């Protein structure tokens, strides 16, 4: 599988407080990962762990504080002209969380798709645009008659399909999907997840699937990246990470996932995710970690490969010891 996008030591900080405040929030710290072609990568973690910030940096909404993103081998910081910027945006579109707020309510649904086609595929003659819009609607499972509807006539699931159709109209390589199903009725979430798998298999699109729902990540994704407090805790092939989690945080996360078919597991943790303001070196999970050793409060752990393709940032796991912080 060839590599599509790669980040190297991606970091994004925000200044917080008043004008004179020197405090910085480390939303994303030293994050390196890659996404291959035709691959769905799930980015999981609790609220405030930096998942959405990564999506926005990749979409060029925020500039990284430091670090670099390479798309098809070329650094994003080299993009200067509007044309190159547009080209990148069309290859890496975003699908948003809230389908009720991300479609303009005063225009017909076709408006958004046609504008995208006009802006990003100017070579397409005006007459062909409607045909192309109907084609992408067909791919996401909406009839061509839907193009003439207004957003208020559509259900949440249909609107989110419009969101994917708009992304698809740009002929993307990678779709950044930021919690695309969390606002939808549970009965139709599976339909959207199946659509994402279909886009990968039939259209050859890669997807960065941002979620806090591990079970849905397992359902569609090929690889899983677990974030904690702005850093990657663990990453690897999804089945490998879920069956043999190496990082204590991943184990905690898995033990807390409710499963009606399994007996209730005992989780003692009451801890809260840390606010990452002006952090000192050391593992950011150490306050909640039952296995923390002295080294954890002195040295920030970095990702190291423990199994093929499976990396974890944990000192204890890297010594080769078996990590069983929370039973799942």
């Amino acid at each position: 599988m060839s590599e599509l996008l790669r980040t190297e030591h991606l970091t994004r900080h925000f200044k917080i407080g008043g004008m004179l405040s020197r405090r910085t929030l480390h939303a994303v710290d030293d994050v390196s990962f890659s996404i291959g072609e035709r691959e769905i990568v799930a980015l999981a973690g609790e609220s405030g762990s930096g998942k959405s910030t990564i999506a926005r940096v990749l979409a060029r909404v925020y500039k990284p504080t430091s670090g670099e993103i390479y798309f098809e081998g070329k650094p994003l910081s080299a993009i200067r002209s509007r044309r190159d910027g547009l080209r990148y945006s069309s290859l890496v579109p975003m699908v948003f969380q809230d389908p009720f707020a991300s479609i303009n309510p005063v225009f017909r649904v076709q408006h958004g798709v046609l504008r995208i086609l006009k802006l990003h595929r100017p070579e397409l003659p005006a007459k062909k645009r409607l045909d192309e819009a109907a084609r992408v609607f067909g791919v996401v499972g909406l009839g061509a008659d839907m193009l003439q509807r207004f957003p208020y006539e559509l259900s949440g699931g249909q609107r989110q399909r419009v969101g994917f159709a708009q992304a698809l109209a740009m002929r993307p390589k990678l779709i950044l999907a930021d919690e695309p199903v969390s606002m939808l009725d549970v009965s139709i979430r599976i339909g959207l997840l199946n659509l994402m798998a279909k886009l990968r298999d039939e259209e050859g699109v890669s997807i960065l699937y941002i979620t806090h729902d591990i079970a849905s990540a397992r359902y569609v994704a090929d690889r899983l990246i677990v974030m904690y407090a702005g850093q990657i805790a663990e990453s690897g092939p999804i089945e490998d990470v879920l069956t043999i989690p190496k990082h204590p945080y991943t184990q905690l996360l898995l033990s807390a996932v409710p499963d009606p078919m399994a007996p209730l597991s005992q989780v003692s943790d009451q801890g809260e995710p840390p606010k990452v303001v002006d952090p000192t070196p050391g593992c950011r999970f150490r306050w909640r970690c039952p296995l923390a050793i002295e080294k954890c409060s002195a040295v920030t752990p970095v990702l190291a490969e423990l199994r093929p393709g499976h990396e974890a940032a944990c000192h204890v796991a890297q010594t080769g010891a078996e990590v069983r912080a929370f039973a799942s």
Partner: protein
Amino acid sequence: MSVVMQSAMNALNPVKSIGAQFKDALQAHGKPSKQEIATRSAEVMRMVGIDPVHLKSYPHQLSGGMRQRSMIAMAMLFTPDLVIMDEPTSALDVVAQRALMVQIKELQQTFGFAVIFVTHDMSLISHFSDRLMVMYAGQIDELGATRTIFDRPLHPYTQGLLEAFPSIHGPRVPLRGIPGNPPDLAMIPTGCRFHPRCPYAVERCTAIAPDLYPVDGDLVRCLRRQDGTLPRADQEGSLSR
């Protein structure tokens, strides 16, 4: 009786400290002395596992989980017999969610109040509720003991709902979810309200509106289940997980 709202971010007054909001609630129900207010507020905060110093904190200083727990503390002020919880955990991540559920269960067992827990997360309540009421389009579809419903859902909608959740254990199986969309409540379908999305719908489902029928000790709103023409989920391999 008291209510715990869905979003603790919006349900607490952002410009008043937690303690001041407790005081408001207590004063609305009588004329307690300052001393009484202070003791009762500290008591309920301890009940939900928050240090009473946070009575002086403002909502923005607390994390999501703590805000939600202080909402529950506020609901406990008058030792209620019934607490209505409208999706109290939906804004929390799984770890905080699990901790809160355990807490609610403990409080419920200590003080013996009843809880109506409104949620869309079927797997969450599977371990915490005694009885389960499944609603569809404004009506009760199925009502029975939680474990029995999870073991053998009777209504096609309940079956679909249980199948709509991927699991983190076991084999990765493709799921179908429920076809179609939630109904528009301004244009309710005739007959059984679920029939446009139901894989087992027959002609009379479109005409006759079903009542809640007792089947196997549960109540279920399905014509074909009542007369026994619907295949049983536990006897049909594809439906049981």
